[in-house]
Structure formats: structure tokens, C-alpha cells
């Protein structure tokens, strides 16, 4: 009798609610500009050993202070470095973010009607000031060699190789990079692993010529067996927690982390209607709780779907337009194209890392797992009108039960102390005609969170039962 009719969606403004900042290498600011690498976004494309990494630049500060150091496995050619439009990140974020879905109940005493809505929250862009900085020459005494030097878009880019970390640190300091005191300890392992350093500063001239008021994301492409993201360097100047969103495209299926657990974010949960205006806050809290429950050492899966051009359904429901040829090209997915193009599988991971819980860089693998996943939270609006018919009365009782479960779910997901939960549950109880309209009390409190406990309880009950039966039998035999 509960005909659920239609859907609405709302974007996970959760992300814009989080602090938006830097990247997995480290931002180094000059002078006193204080920077926290709170959140970064990365697009990864992996096809065989071909890897394309696009790093977002939500740098908030004076442009001339912008500098970035990223370890890369090979010396990149100029053609392997590009700048792309920031739009792609907003696009992918809007498309794959956790979603709030709304359903409308129909009144069992009245005929059916349909509703459809759609809304989105806009993201704000980072604005930066103008100024510039040039590199100094390389220095053989320090063991630092400038392998290549390019100007790409609004950036001056250097590829450095180094023989020892102290030299590299000195070189970076001489070139006016503000390096954290402990950075050389982290630089050392990268140098020994024969990695090169991709060093970026802003080319003011080009920056002024471009019409944008933000720094473009940088895209690099290379072929290497290693499929990883160097997060350790980014933790050299911060002991706090940093968030990173990874949007990954592969041919075969999901990517997952190989040295940390990849965990699905809780999904398909029915939550109370009053969460709607606070959805961003809700998701932020939910994420924090899941993060803590998983020992602060897990990587979270937020979205996984086959987004090939030929694939029909790409989300259920979609919160934004799905990526098509243009986005694929921008991201570096070079195998997509045409209606019978090959599979493009999209994975979105969200990792919150800190120095103490994430000692190793993130390594990934591509799996053949094409199972769909999305972070989805459901609101169900009650029907309106007259409920005096029998079915209507039954509907109201069901509604009460349902809302009680929604409150339990909310508490399980966020630990939020829902003050108006009693009123929410009993909103329609005055329209019930009989006396059985009391707040129903469940057998077990907080149903959503106690499933493991219940299973353990059952197992131990079985064990005790079995032993008792055995003892009684033996006794009667004796």
C-alpha cells in the first residue's frame, strides 16, 4: 500500500562543507603564510601501466607563494604534463558524491499523484592573488640535478633528481621553498627508491595572461608498474588529519587500496526528514563516525559504477550529469569513445589520513570488481490528506514505526542527539482514531547498531543450549 512515487536528489554538499585545500604532495608556502593540507582531490586513470594523475589546486593564498613538490617515478616529458580546467573536479564531485534521495508516500485513502524535483548546491571557487616566482639554477654540489624544465600553462615546472635528501632540502630552501624541518627524513626514501621530484611554481606572466582567478589543476602522465599516491610527503608539514578524494577510471573495475582496508561507506539508509537542510553536516558526521569505527585507518568507497558511453543506468538516482566523452578526455581516459567503446569504470574513494595511522603511501590495485555502489540516504515524505479509512489508519501506524526506525538509524550513523525525535515520530498520532497510538517500544534498543552483538548473542546461546542438552542426556544415561 505504500506506493513510493518519486525521487529527488540533492547533491552531497557534504564536501563543500568540508574545508577545501591542497594535494598529496606538499604545498610549501613562503614567509608566514600558514597552510594546512586539509583536503585534496585527485583524478587517477589506470590502464595497464599507463597512469594519469590530475591534481586539484584549491590553493588559498598568494599565487607567488604557491609551490608544490610531488615524487614521480620517471622524468616526465613536456608532452606528459598538461593543465586542465578546474571544472572537471566539480563535475566529478557533483556526479559521484553521496546523495540524498527523497520519496513521497501516496495517501492510501486518495488517488496517486507524482512529483519530481531536482536541486544542486553550487561549489565555490578558490580565489588567489597575483604575483610570481622564478627558479634558481641547479646545484651539483648539493647532488641535485635539474633533469628537465618546462613552462606549462601558468606553471614553471622542474623535474629534479637528487642523490641525498639534505642536498635536496638545501636546494629547495635556497629556491625559497619553505620546507618543513622534518622533510628530509621523508625525502630520503623517495630518493633511494629512484623517484624524481616534480616541482611546480607559478609563472606570473602566463598566469596574468590567463583569464582565470584560480590555479589550474595539473595533469601528469607516465608509464610505470607502480600504482600509488605519495601521501607521506604531504604529512611532513602537518600532523593533523587530511582528506583526499580520489576519482579513478579504469577499464576493468573498481580500484582498491592494497595496504589499507577499503571499506564501503554506510549506504541506503532511511533517515528522518529533518536531516534534509543539514545533509552536508550529516554526511560529515557520518563520515567521521565511520572513520573512527574503522580505527581511523580505512579508505572509504563512496561510489563505484560502470560509466561507459554505452552503459544505460549510471547512478540511481543521478545527482549530476554523468561524465561523457569530454570529461573522459579531460581526465585522460583515452580508450573511451563511441557507443560501443570499451568499459570505463569509475571509483570514488575518500581517505582521511594522518601521520600516525597511515605510515605507508597509498598503493592501489585495479580489480575486476564491477559491482555498483553509491552512498545514498533516503528521505520519505508522508502522504497528506484524510487518513480516516482503514488503510489510512494502518498507514499512520506504519509511519510511526518507520519514523522510529529512522531515528534509530540516525543515532546509529551519527550519534546525533535528536531532540525533537518524539515529536517527529508522533507527528500524526493525533490522527489515529483508536487508543493504540503510543510510542512503540522496541525489544532491543537502537536496532541498527546491534546486529553483530545479536549474532554473537545467538551463537553463545546456541553453545550454552547444546552443552546443557548434552549434560542432561549424559545425566539421564548415568
Amino acid at each position: 500500500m505504500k506506493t513510493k512515487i518519486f525521487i529527488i536528489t540533492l547533491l552531497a554538499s557534504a564536501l563543500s562543507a568540508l574545508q577545501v585545500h591542497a594535494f598529496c604532495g606538499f604545498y610549501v608556502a613562503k614567509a608566514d603564510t600558514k597552510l594546512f593540507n586539509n583536503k585534496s582531490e585527485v583524478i587517477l586513470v589506470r590502464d595497464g601501466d599507463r597512469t594519469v594523475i590530475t591534481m586539484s589546486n584549491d590553493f588559498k593564498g598568494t599565487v607567488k607563494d604557491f609551490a608544490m613538490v610531488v615524487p614521480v617515478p620517471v622524468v616526465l616529458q613536456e608532452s606528459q604534463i598538461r593543465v586542465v580546467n578546474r571544472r572537471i573536479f566539480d563535475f566529478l564531485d557533483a556526479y559521484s558524491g553521496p546523495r540524498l534521495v527523497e520519496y513521497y508516500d501516496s495517501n492510501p485513502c486518495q488517488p496517486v499523484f507524482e512529483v519530481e524535483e531536482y536541486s544542486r548546491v553550487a561549489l565555490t571557487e578558490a580565489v588567489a592573488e597575483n604575483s610570481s616566482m622564478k627558479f634558481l639554477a641547479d646545484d651539483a654540489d648539493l647532488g641535485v640535478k635539474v633533469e628537465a624544465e618546462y613552462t606549462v600553462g601558468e606553471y614553471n615546472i622542474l623535474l629534479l633528481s637528487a642523490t641525498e635528501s639534505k642536498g635536496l632540502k638545501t636546494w629547495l630552501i635556497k629556491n625559497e621553498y619553505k620546507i618543513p624541518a622534518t622533510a628530509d627524513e621523508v625525502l630520503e626514501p623517495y630518493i633511494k627508491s629512484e623517484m624524481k621530484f616534480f616541482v611546480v611554481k607559478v609563472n606570473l606572466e602566463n598566469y596574468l595572461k590567463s583569464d582565470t582567478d584560480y590555479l589550474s589543476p595539473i595533469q601528469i602522465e607516465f608509464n610505470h608498474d607502480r600504482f600509488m599516491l605519495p601521501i607521506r610527503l604531504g604529512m611532513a608539514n602537518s600532523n593533523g588529519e587530511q582528506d583526499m578524494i580520489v576519482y579513478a577510471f579504469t577499464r576493468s573495475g573498481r580500484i582498491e587500496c592494497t595496504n589499507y582496508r577499503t571499506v564501503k561507506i554506510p549506504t541506503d539508509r532511511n533517515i528522518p526528514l529533518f536531516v534534509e537542510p543539514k545533509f552536508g553536516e550529516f554526511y560529515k558526521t557520518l563520515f567521521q563516525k565511520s572513520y573512527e569505527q574503522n580505527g581511523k585507518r580505512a579508505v572509504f568507497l563512496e561510489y563505484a559504477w560502470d560509466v561507459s558511453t554505452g552503459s544505460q543506468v549510471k547512478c540511481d538516482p543521478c545527482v549530476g550529469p554523468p561524465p561523457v566523452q569530454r570529461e573522459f578526455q579531460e581526465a585522460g581516459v583515452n580508450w573511451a569513445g563511441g557507443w560501443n567503446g570499451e568499459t570505463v569504470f569509475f571509483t570514488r574513494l575518500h581517505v582521511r589520513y594522518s601521520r600516525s595511522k597511515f605510515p605507508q603511501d597509498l598503493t592501489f590495485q585495479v580489480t575486476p570488481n564491477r559491482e555498483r555502489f553509491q552512498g545514498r540516504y533516503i528521505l520519505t515524505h508522508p502522504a497528506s490528506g484524510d487518513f480516516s479509512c482503514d488503510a489510512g489508519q494502518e498507514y499512520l501506524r506504519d509511519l510511526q514505526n518507520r519514523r522510529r526506525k529512522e531515528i534509530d538509524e540516525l543515532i546509529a550513523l551519527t550519534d546525533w542527539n535528536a531532540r525533537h525525535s518524539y515529536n517527529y515520530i508522533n507527528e500524526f498520532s493525533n490522527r489515529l482514531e483508536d487508543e493504540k497510538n503510543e510510542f512503540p517500544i522496541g525489544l532491543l534498543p537502537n536496532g541498527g547498531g546491534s546486529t553483530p552483538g545479536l549474532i554473537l548473542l545467538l551463537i553463545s546461546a546456541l553453545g550454552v543450549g547444546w552443552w546443557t542438552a548434552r549434560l542432561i542426556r549424559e545425566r539421564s544415561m548415568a
Partner: protein
Amino acid sequence: MSALMLKFQQSLQVWGSVFIKDARHFQIFYLGAFLLFGIIFLDLQSELSRILLFLLTCIITQLIGAAWRGASPSSWKSATITALGLSLLLYSSNFWVIIFAAFVAMASKFLIRFQGKHIFNPGNFGIIAAIALTGEAWVSPGQWGSDIILVYFFGAAALMVLLKVGRIDTSLSFIITLFILEYFRTIVYLGWDWDVLFHKFSNGSLLLFTFFMITDPVTTPKNKKARIIWGAMIAVLAFGLSQWFYIYTAPIWALFFAAPLTALFNHYMKGKTFQWIQ
């Protein structure tokens, strides 16, 4: 009341001695508990259907094979161990691949034999076959995390020593060799902190492999010295594969390649044939 307690104690002892006599009981118990732990607390993608398919296919294949080769009917226990091992490590979203992996694992016991003994660890063989031949299966090395599991496995290892079952010498030789190699590479050469090394070695999948996969008494060399050399060889191979080829499931591949050497070791270094029931 005290009579009841006495009865209780006696029956515990009887059951305890039956349990200890067959090493496989211990393995089934630990693997099963581990699987349960993963399902309940780690929320692993351990759908019941996948585990049931592994169990059913393994046991049926084993029973058919046992009837054909005339093996002991109690060999369903070995099949259960293989099925649990597969459930803990191998994933696929295709049911046919699950059935294939389980079938190939058990069939390898009856088909790939040398001097009356099967060569490959059945679970290991099933995993490699499914990954290499179907392209639809995968192992998630990060799935167990790096936490309490450490304690769990060390508990298991200690029990193995105490109960004198399994082949703890292989485990220790493997893990110690790997630790030494990783220590020199990660800490001495690359200069990472100790926590990087500890994080690597508290990986649940690695420990699972160390204490439950390479300890299979039938496919490890009979001679104790040979087992120690063999375990160390697997460690060297796994280390090389992971360091220079970035294969995250390196130990599983290393074991696969080292398995045929067991026959060679058994030829040159004599030892007692393992009996499950002591």
C-alpha cells in the same frame, strides 16, 4: 552438583582430546573464527553465498576424488580447510569463477601428483588458477587491515606450537626471512621509520598466509631443515616480486612457484610422512 561438574569436566576432556588428535579441527576452528570475525566486525564482502559455494564445491569435489582414489572419508575436513582459506582470500562477483576456483583447487589434489602426494597447496592453486585464467577474480591484500588481527594470529601461532600441530617452522622461517629482508630494504636502505615496517608486517593477509597457507603439512617438505630452507626461499621470492615488480599478492605467487620444489627436497632430504590423525 559436584558430580555434574565432574561429568562436565570429563566430557570436556574427551572432546578436547578428540579435537587435538586431528590438526585439521584446529585449523577449521581458527579459519572459521577468522571468517566470522571478518564478517561481523570488518563488514567484509563475505556474502554467505560465496562461502557456501566454496564449501559445497570443495567438499563435493573432494568426496568424488576420494571415492575415485580411495582416500579416507574424513578428508572432507581438508576440503573444508581449503574452502575456508579460499573464502578468506579470494573474491569474484561471478559465481562460476567461485565454483571454478574451488573445483580446480580440489581437483589439483587428485590430478597433479608426484610419488603419491599432491604437489600444490590446493587453496593456493585455486587462487592462482582463478586469477590467471579467468581474469574475474582478485585477492584484496588490504582487506584485513593491520590491527588487532596481529594479536589474533600470534595467539593462533602460539597455540600451534603448544598443540604441536601444523608446521610452525615453515611459518617462522618465512616470516623471519621476509622481516630481515624488509628491514634492510625499508629501514636501513630506504630510511623509512619503523612504523612503516610494522604496518607491513601486521597486515592480516600476510599473517593469514604465513600461519595458515604455507603450513599445509602435505605440500611442505618432510624434512625439518628442508622446510626451513623452503620457507626462506618463498620469502626471498615474495620479497623480490613485491619490491621490484610491485605485485601486492607476492607471497601467494611465490608459494605457487616454490611448491614443485617440495618433491625435490623430499628426494634429497628424507623425513617422516605427515599423518593428520596422531
